[in-house]
């Protein structure tokens, strides 16, 4: 779905270690290459160093240090990062509106349905 070479890499930005590690583990089992960050600030640092840039970012909304909304603003203002698609992970029933507000490419509600998660990731990782 993307014209960049992204090598099935996925950035998981999530402050809860258990959720973060479980998603990374599952992605690894699915032959993806996940890397993780615990908040928006760490995610920006990791993104700027990453090569190749990830196919998609899984982004939590409420996080300490820098939340998902701020991260998204920073990411969109950086020409090197602004074309990486973002899928919002939200615990709120109003995930739809949060995703719309953050101009994200998609959203997943917590608790996450694993099949849905993998389908979504796969969609962004398919090479042309």
């Amino acid at each position, binding site marked *: 779905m993307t014209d960049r070479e992204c090598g099935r890499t996925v950035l998981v930005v999530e402050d*809860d270690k*258990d*959720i973060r590690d*479980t*998603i990374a*583990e*599952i992605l690894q*089992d699915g032959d993806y290459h996940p890397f993780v960050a615990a908040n928006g600030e760490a995610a920006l640092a990791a993104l700027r160093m990453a090569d190749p840039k990830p196919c998609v970012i899984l982004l939590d909304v409420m996080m300490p240090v820098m939340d998902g909304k701020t991260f998204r603003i920073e990411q969109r203002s950086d020409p090197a990062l602004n074309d990486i698609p973002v899928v919002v992970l939200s*615990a709120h*029933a*109003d995930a*739809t*509106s949060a995703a*719309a507000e953050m101009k994200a490419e998609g959203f997943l509600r*917590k*608790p*996450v*349905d*694993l*099949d849905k998660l993998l389908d979504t990731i796969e969609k962004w990782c398919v090479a042309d």
Partner: protein
Amino acid sequence: MNTPGVLPSIQSLVESNELRVLTDSVKDYAIFVLDHTGRVMTWNRGAQNIKGYSPAEIIGEHFSRFYTPEDRKAGRPAQLLAGAAREGRVEDEGFRVRKDGTRFWADVIISALRTEQGELRGFVKVTRDLTTRRMAEEQLRESEERLRLMIDSVKEYAIFMLTPEGRVSTWNLGAERLKGYTQAEIVGQHFSRFYPPEENALGKAQRELEIAAREGRFEEEGIRVRKDGTRFWANVVLSAVRDHQGRLLGFAKVTRDMTDRRRGEEETAQRARQQAAVAELGLYALQTGDLNALLERAILSARKVLGLEEIAIVNTPSDGDHIQVPIHASDRKADAYGYLTVARRSLTGGDTSFLQAVANVLAAAISRSEMEQQLRSAERANSEERARTEQAQQALRQRDEFISVAAHELRTPLTALHLKLQGLERKMRGSDRKEAAQVTAAVRQTDRLARLIDRLLDVSRISQGRLEMTREEFDLAAMVRQVAEDFREPAEQAQAPLELEVPEALEGCWDRLRLEQVLVNVLSNAVKYGGGQPIQVKLSGDEERVRFEVADRGIGISPEDIGRIFGRFERATSLRHYGGMGLGLYISRHIVEGHGGTISVSSEQGKGSTFVVELPRFETVVRPRAAQVRA
């Protein structure tokens, strides 16, 4: 959707015990919550005491039934709600109707419950039976009236009040006779017009006021002028009247025509002095709240007028050769407040009736002070009750906040657990080890737990007025088919196959996730309570509205329960294995109303229930209608 065994414990958490104890301990006040349409949502013991309904009878009913038919016809209940919604709070006094049809005089406060965003959630209504308080107020008015009558009826003296500036504020019969002005003519005029012009030129009237204000009292004899211009020789006593803080309220003025006294005999003079003393005492009683000061003044005045030192007020009649005049409230046959005693064997008839008049003034003043005390304690109780209501509302808010925080906290570890189990399930997919089935069951349990937490969050959103709809265009027919498909398996297991009557497509603009939640809730109830009979699912619509109908042929809902099933935490059925359907329908109702639609149910016990959801196809500005119920 509901989880038997889990829901009851969450229900008990939600039905905060503290809150119930708090409002239930209030027995003298009806304190209850109305939803935004005026339907009763909660009921405390005080409400039961005052209005006579039990919670089961009244919850879900519209509060207009507490009003008289006249008030209902005049639209009073709706006016009060609208007023509370607009002003935040309305207070009203008037007749209300008990269950048995009797009326009582009530003080009603309706406060709007709003979210921080200002959205109307409902109302808190506090009703107090004022019948007792009202009687106390009437008695107070009567006793004041008695004192006034006593003053008004004095014919020999002009007794009237002046404002601090010297304008006439009251007028009695004696004043009218002496000075020739009627009350209507003189009230509001400056009292300097009673003085001859030559004295006014010297500022005499003003000087007298200043002396009276400074020294408390001014007395003189001098020339005064009647309305017709004739002059008379007068004895004038001007007394300053102050309140408890010492602020000047005005002056009491007693004017006596001395021309008469010079002509009259000593007996008449004595009578006149007695009358003046009684009148002055009456005026003083009206102005002061200090009973002891009044009693002291009464004794001094009686001693002075009668020229006797041995006058006292005692609680019980004393032995010996005393004249005893009981101090009786006129409406009381019972015990006297006390006795005016004079150490004499006999008095003239005139002196005795003077003492009786003094006793009457004292009795009226005492009974007035008792009424005032009753009123004050009633008011104190009132403000304490208000503080308790505040507390109850605070507890309600804290509970909602607690639910919200607790549910969010639960969700994070649950998400991790859920993901891990799904990962495991995925790895074991296709395996015939028995652990595979166990993992699948564990995933299903965490699914249920997650949905339960979602509901809890929905309830707290609703009660904080934060349930928002995010609309998008989609095909409702496709959604109904999809949800029905998801239910095919459980429906077949319950031997309640779904019979669909759904058009090809029915597009509209709604909140997709929320509407799916409603469909799932209504269908899961039908499957659960359908009693193993086919379930009909119909969807239809025209240009403006759509109608979704689910009819089962199951156990049905009893008439007592049908009014409550859209309320918070109600479960119509007492059969435990049917689990809870309360939260789901409560949430569904709010979602449907949030779309400007209605949800209703008709049911017959043993024959089944039909739930109907009607929605506008596109967003309208119409206010949400209340859930409708037909038995």
